[in-house]
């Protein structure tokens, strides 16, 4: 198959292409350009716009190059008068009712209709009658405004929604000259992938609410970047507009990279950028005045802030030793910054208390059957364990949808709450804390046994040949071990298996690989291994074994950890036990918080250091498949007009290192790059993965509610538009995607607790009462309460901390 070639000529140039190639692509290969509107590499051809008409010898009519497949000996011409006339006519038709408002159109300057009319179209219109008028600002969804007059009905947007997103919300309505892009009545186009249609639209019909009327394409400065929204690591481009105050970030667009994103972005990655220039960013260092209660913070200078941090750190070292100091750095750090932070902790301070896990996850990778995102394309079976890919790895979810809907992959989901996948799949309910049991049963069913596995699933798993790709959310250590065993059983049967772990934050995997875990040095070398320690320049024996995030918090509460340093970690919001996180922050420990915003956590700190956003730094991120990708280069924080004095996280670490030990933390950029390469984090390579043996219960921060009795077990759900940091401080974005305090119940439980959908209820847990609205859905298994994470006003981690949750009836005062 691969060797087969079809020969044809296009404008007299001979080309050889694989059978089935479109004439359009063959022409591209021959260096002949054919104009298109409706055609797009990632969408099935429809041939509705006719701008690509070409002459094919032997064919009576012109044929669309975008849907015609090559044939042996085919003779194609694109340079004849007929073709030129056809292009001109198509453009004249498209322009009949077109408003020609290029001067005020966002797309002007990067519009296919403008460009092709200039190149091939008639100079003047022959239309004598008035143009048809249509609505020019239709509110299509949270982020998109439709100008019906500009739409040329190429159907790229609707095809994307049907073929790629598999959602079928956006359709063509009406007929002929009245045809328009629309949705069902009362249904907004609220897909989490909606923004892609803006880029797909060849004209200015679909415009971004954030970018509308903000810039002209030729004024934009473009910077290549990696999205920091989640661990998928999509390739993006940042568009800045310079003005007297500096550069303003005006929009984020895709930078197609097929191995990861196929050119698609989710709406979080595309629209959640306003935080970079939010006036709510912390403008200068803050300190809690001596003797003032927690929550009191006053501005200070960097010198004073550093003096306090260093002074207190030295005091604690003198009284409690290095074990009294802990560093917790969220996964928003680059690989380099994560490395520097653990080096600051281990080499300079001498403590092993470092961790990146701020949300109760056990691992960000696992060294069984390491997979790549593209493995999903050839999967025969996809098994989603605990993860909600549509929320926490959205662009990967597009591949899952495609594999299931268009390639016939068997899609299984396992966990307490069935993720919203938009495509047919089989849900295998498994209670929180018991995912391992289900996975063990599944493994046994491969060998013919296995109780509790639906016979149809067991049979399918038995029969399916080929690749199985598992996605795991990295929670519940036991589930990780059981999943590893399941994958090994699958492999033992001569079938291929791959695993992707969806980390909690954009660079969880990089932080893990860089050694931001108490039990691991950079490069997945054991912190307890004397040889590895010697090579890292550490004492052969740690003074004390390192503490995990949870243990550090417990030690702070117990008065044994007097200094806690948090970087980009809003623990009050993200840690599964809010009571513990809050108690630790309110303890006697000296708390330093390094962040962009005054988060719930930062408010309780002793010193707050303002960190610069990702746009201000260069480095590398490691995505969920382990791919090490460069971000940057860049040197400025585009805080146009903001009186912000922020340092990048890395600069702060280096400054602290130098202040503490009197010499730089690393000798220079060269040494840093070497250290990272030695840790398996060389630019452009793939990182290693966590040994299964390191999946300890102790590192598993998600407590399993004990005791039976009445009550529901809370299962936290990731939310794409929610979060502990950037999204909650991005006003414009938050307004477009308001997050309701909603919890999810199974119909049986709703009946048992006497609630109906829409009720506001009080949820009683060990730690007080949380109010929320109830939604009833079969996606949640019986006995479980689905609680979204990262929703302002819904303290999900009060419910997951301890014990079972009781639904304390309807709050009747809400009814009136």
């Amino acid at each position, binding site marked *: 198959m691969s060797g087969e070639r079809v020969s044809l000529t296009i404008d007299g140039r001979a080309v050889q292409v694989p059978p089935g190639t479109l004439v359009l692509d063959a022409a591209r290969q021959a260096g002949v350009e054919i104009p298109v509107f409706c055609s797009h590499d990632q969408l099935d051809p429809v041939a509705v716009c006719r701008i690509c008409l070409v002459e094919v010898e032997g064919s009576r009519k012109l044929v669309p190059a975008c849907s015609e497949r090559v044939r042996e000996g085919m003779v194609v011409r694109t340079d004849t008068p007929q073709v030129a006339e056809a292009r001109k006519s198509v453009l004249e038709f498209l322009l009949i009712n077109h408003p020609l408002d290029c001067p005020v159109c966002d797309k002007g300057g990067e519009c296919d209709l403008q460009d092709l009319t200039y190149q091939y179209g008639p100079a003047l219109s022959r239309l004598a009658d008035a143009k048809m008028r249509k609505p020019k600002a239709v509110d299509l969804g949270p982020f998109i405004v439709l100008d019906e007059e500009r739409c040329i009905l190429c159907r790229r947007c609707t095809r994307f929604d049907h073929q790629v997103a598999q959602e*079928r*919300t956006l359709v063509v*309505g009406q*007929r002929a000259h009245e045809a328009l892009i*629309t*949705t*069902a009545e009362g249904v907004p186009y609220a897909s989490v992938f909606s923004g892609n249609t803006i880029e797909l639209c060849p004209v200015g019909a679909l415009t971004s609410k954030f970018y509308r009327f903000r810039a002209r394409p030729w004024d934009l400065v473009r910077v290549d970047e990696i999205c920091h929204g989640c661990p998928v690591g999509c390739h993006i481009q940042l568009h800045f507009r310079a003005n007297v105050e500096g550069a303003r970030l005006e929009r984020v667009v895709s930078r197609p990279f097929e191995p990861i994103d196929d050119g698609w972005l989710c709406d979080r990655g595309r629209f959640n950028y306003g935080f970079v220039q939010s006036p709510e960013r912390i403008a200068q260092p803050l300190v809690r005045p001596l003797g003032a209660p927690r929550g009191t913070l006053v501005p200070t200078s960097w010198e004073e802030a550093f003096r306090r941090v260093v002074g207190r750190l030295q005091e604690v070292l003198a009284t409690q030793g290095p074990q009294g100091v802990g560093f917790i750095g969220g996964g928003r750090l680059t690989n380099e910054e994560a490395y520097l932070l653990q080096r600051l902790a281990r080499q300079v301070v001498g403590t092993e208390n470092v961790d990146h896990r701020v949300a109760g996850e056990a691992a960000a990778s696992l060294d069984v059957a390491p997979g790549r995102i593209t493995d999903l394309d050839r999967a025969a079976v996809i098994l989603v364990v605990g993860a909600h890919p549509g929320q926490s790895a959205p662009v990967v979810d597009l591949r899952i949808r495609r594999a299931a809907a268009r390639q016939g992959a068997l899609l299984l989901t396992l966990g307490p709450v069935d993720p919203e996948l938009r495509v047919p799949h089989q849900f295998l309910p498994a209670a929180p804390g018991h995912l391992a049991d289900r996975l063990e049963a599944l493994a046994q069913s491969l060998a013919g046994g296995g109780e509790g596995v639906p016979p149809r699933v067991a049979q399918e798993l038995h029969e399916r040949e080929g690749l199985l790709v598992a996605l795991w959310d990295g929670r519940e250590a036991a589930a990780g071990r059981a999943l590893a065993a399941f994958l090994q059983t699958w492999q033992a049967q001569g079938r291929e298996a791959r695993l992707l772990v969806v980390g909690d934050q954009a660079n969880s995997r990089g932080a893990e690989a860089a050694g931001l875990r108490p039990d691991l040095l950079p490069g997945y070398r054991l912190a307890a291994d004397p040889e590895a320690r010697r090579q890292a320049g550490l004492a052969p024996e740690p003074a004390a074994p390192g503490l995990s995030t949870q243990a550090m918090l417990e030690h702070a509460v117990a008065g044994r950890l007097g200094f806690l340093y948090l970087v980009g970690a809003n623990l009050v919001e993200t840690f599964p036990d809010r009571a513990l996180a809050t108690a630790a922050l309110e303890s006697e420990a000296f708390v330093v918080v390094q962040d962009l915003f005054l988060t719930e956590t930062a408010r309780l700190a002793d010193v707050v250091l303002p960190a610069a956003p990702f746009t201000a730094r260069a480095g590398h991120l490691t995505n969920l498949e382990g791919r090490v990708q460069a971000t940057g280069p860049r040197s400025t924080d585009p805080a146009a007009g903001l009186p912000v004095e922020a340092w990048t996280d890395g600069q702060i670490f280096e400054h602290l290192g130098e202040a503490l030990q009197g010499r730089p933390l690393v000798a220079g950029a060269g040494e840093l790059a070497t250290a990272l390469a030695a840790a398996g984090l060389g630019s452009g390579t793939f990182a290693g993965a966590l040994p299964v043996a390191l999946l300890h219960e102790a590192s598993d921060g998600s407590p399993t509610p004990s005791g039976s009795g009445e009550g529901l077990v809370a299962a936290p759900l990731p939310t794409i538009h929610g979060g502990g940091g950037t999204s909650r401080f991005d006003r414009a974005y938050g307004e477009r995607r308001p997050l309701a305090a909603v919890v999810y119940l199974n119909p049986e439980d709703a009946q048992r607790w006497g609630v109906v959908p829409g009720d506001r209820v009080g949820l009683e847990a060990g730690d007080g009462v949380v109010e929320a609205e109830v*939604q*009833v*859905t079969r996606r949640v298994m019986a006995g479980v309460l689905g609680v979204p994470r990262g929703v302002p006003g819904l303290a999900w981690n009060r419910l997951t901390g301890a014990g079972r949750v009781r639904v304390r009836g309807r709050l009747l005062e809400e009814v009136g």
Partner: protein
Amino acid sequence: MMEKQAVSWVVERHEEIEALINRYPERRSAVLPLLHLAQEARGYLATEDVEAVAELVGMTPSEVTGIVSFYSLLHRQPRGRYTLTLCQNLPCVLAGAEALAQHLRQRLGIAPGETTPDGLLTLEETHECLAACDGAPVVQVNLEYATHMTPEKVDRLLEALRAASQEAAAPDGEEDDAGGL
């Protein structure tokens, strides 16, 4: 989600619906017959009808909306008991359809697309040929043709329609709600 209250025609005409769906190898092929059935039941297609049809054939409400809006014989607004569709294509216009349009609007006191306050008549004008040019000018009454129309014939037609509706309403003296208004 909690099970929604089923739309009445879905329950009442369950067997007919099943038969329609089973007529085709794919469920979605039954979308048009089902829309006609739903429209027959209510007189027009309410949002819940669109949703119900979507659910029956495994499409999204958006997809069904797209189909409904494509066909001029499917209506999303309540209609009068009778819809008068006046052809305004060239042959009919040459035979006097424009004057007829004027007359009808005045007589009924409504514009095209509107329904008389008593819910009896909806006026439509179409620029697509009704495919009965030999009888130009043509008025379509629901699905039937009235040909070679003149203002006088239109008046008689209107009277006949009014009389027919009163008769239909008379026997049990109930309000005539066929128009759905």
